[in-house]
């Protein structure tokens, strides 16, 4: 019995000292994947050091800790790297269970993970709308609208957030739709998320952006517009040169 108490004490001390250990986030403005991690950390009130990466000149730190993809975001916890935004969120959820982002019930958790996967599989379409033209862009627009339709019809129901009354991991996964999609629409000159066609999504976007942690941690809309517009011009002109 004494050794069990000792073991439990040792575990709780080491885990709490690990949880207080150095936490760094390698990110890049205005990457929505970077923001996913920022939102999760701030919602749970976890202090961390943010390191801005220049993606045109990736640091040795990033290359060392993300050897497979060489991408942000990377979370460094006591020097150990975790890559891929939604995997980072699952890690954060397990290490810091306060303010849970996933439901407690395993079936509800499976539903949440289903939608997280859906988000990661389908959201790239809106970025193809952003960086392509012609037939490729047309198809991407159809795919984006189809993604929005599925979310509208199947994912939200009558709830305020995907997570229920409070935001959760699925809301964070779909966060790009609340802000970045609007920027893409403005730059490209299309409207894909019509408010009257997607009333639930429209309401969700308003609710999502009113959550204080989200409201206070979104890139400035105009700055994003300028950044992405310029980048799109470079992308399209270089693809024409090929």
């Amino acid at each position, binding site marked *: 019995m004494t050794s069990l108490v000792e073991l439990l004490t040792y575990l709780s001390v080491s885990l709490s000292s690990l949880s207080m250990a150095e936490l760094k986030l390698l990110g890049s403005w205005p990457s929505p994947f970077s923001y996913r991690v920022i939102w999760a950390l701030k919602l749970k009130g976890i202090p961390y050091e943010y390191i801005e990466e220049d993606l045109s000149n990736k640091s040795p730190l990033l290359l060392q800790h993300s050897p*497979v993809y060489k991408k942000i975001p990377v979370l460094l*916890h006591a020097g*150990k790297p*975790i*890559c*891929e935004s939604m*995997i*980072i969120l*699952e*890690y954060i959820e*397990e*290490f810091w269970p306060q303010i849970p982002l996933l439901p407690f019930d*395993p*079936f509800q*958790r*499976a*539903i949440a*993970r*289903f939608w997280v*996967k*859906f988000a*990661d599989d389908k959201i790239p379409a809106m970025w193809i709308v952003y960086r392509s033209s012609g037939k490729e862009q047309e198809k991407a627009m159809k795919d984006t609208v189809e993604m929005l339709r*599925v979310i509208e019809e*199947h994912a939200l129901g009558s709830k305020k957030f995907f997570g229920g009354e409070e935001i959760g991991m699925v809301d964070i996964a779909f966060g790009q739709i609340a802000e970045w999609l609007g920027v893409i629409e403005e730059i490209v000159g299309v409207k894909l998320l019509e408010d009257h066609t997607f009333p639930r999504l429209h309401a969700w976007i308003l609710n999502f952006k009113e959550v204080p942690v989200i409201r206070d941690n979104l890139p400035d809309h105009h700055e994003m517009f300028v950044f992405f517009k310029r980048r799109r011009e470079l992308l399209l002109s270089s693809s024409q040169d090929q």
Partner: protein
Amino acid sequence: MAEEVLLFGAWGSPFSRRVEMALKLKGIQYKYFEEDITNKSPTLLKYNPIHKKIPVLVHNGKPIAESQVILEYIDETWKGHPIFPKDPYERANARFWAKFIDEKCLPVIHNALWGEEKQHENAVKEACELLKHLEDEIGEKKYFGGEAIGFVDIVANIIGFWLGIFEETSGTKLLTRVEFPKLSNWADVFVSSSGIKENLPPKDKLIAYLRTRFGTRSTDASK
């Protein structure tokens, strides 16, 4: 209520077999329904209206789709023979490699085996670069999960068994023993492991099926 576990799957699908491997490793009784993926049943469409694909696990009337999501659910619900590590960092690592296999490796391997002729050499090179990451990850371990079969091993079933079949039907070899001794060794151990070997589709039947359905060009559209 008595426990009811149903699995809608397809005999040749690695995604379907992943779920069966997990259920069998944990000794969970289930009822299996074979789906004809060219003529999907109304029941399947009811349980997976969004993707309309197998596998779907139905536990006490509640459906779960997407093989990796199903594996996580199984591990959280039935505690025997855990397939995920306990440590959060190791769990993140397992999720990373599982995602790498399905999202990065599979499309590139598909391209290398059945892509356009003129891009063949580059596609093969790209596929081998990805397999090298798995070669490094398995290292000296018996399984990706360590001493016992884990989440990544089950997800890598497609590399361990189906890749060999696809290589035969496409005529391109990627997983060579010379270039990937550790990964090749893992594949041998994996397919002969208890709980796995009983759960693999018959090789000849699968080759014949792929050749009939897709000719000499085949896809992993067995979902």
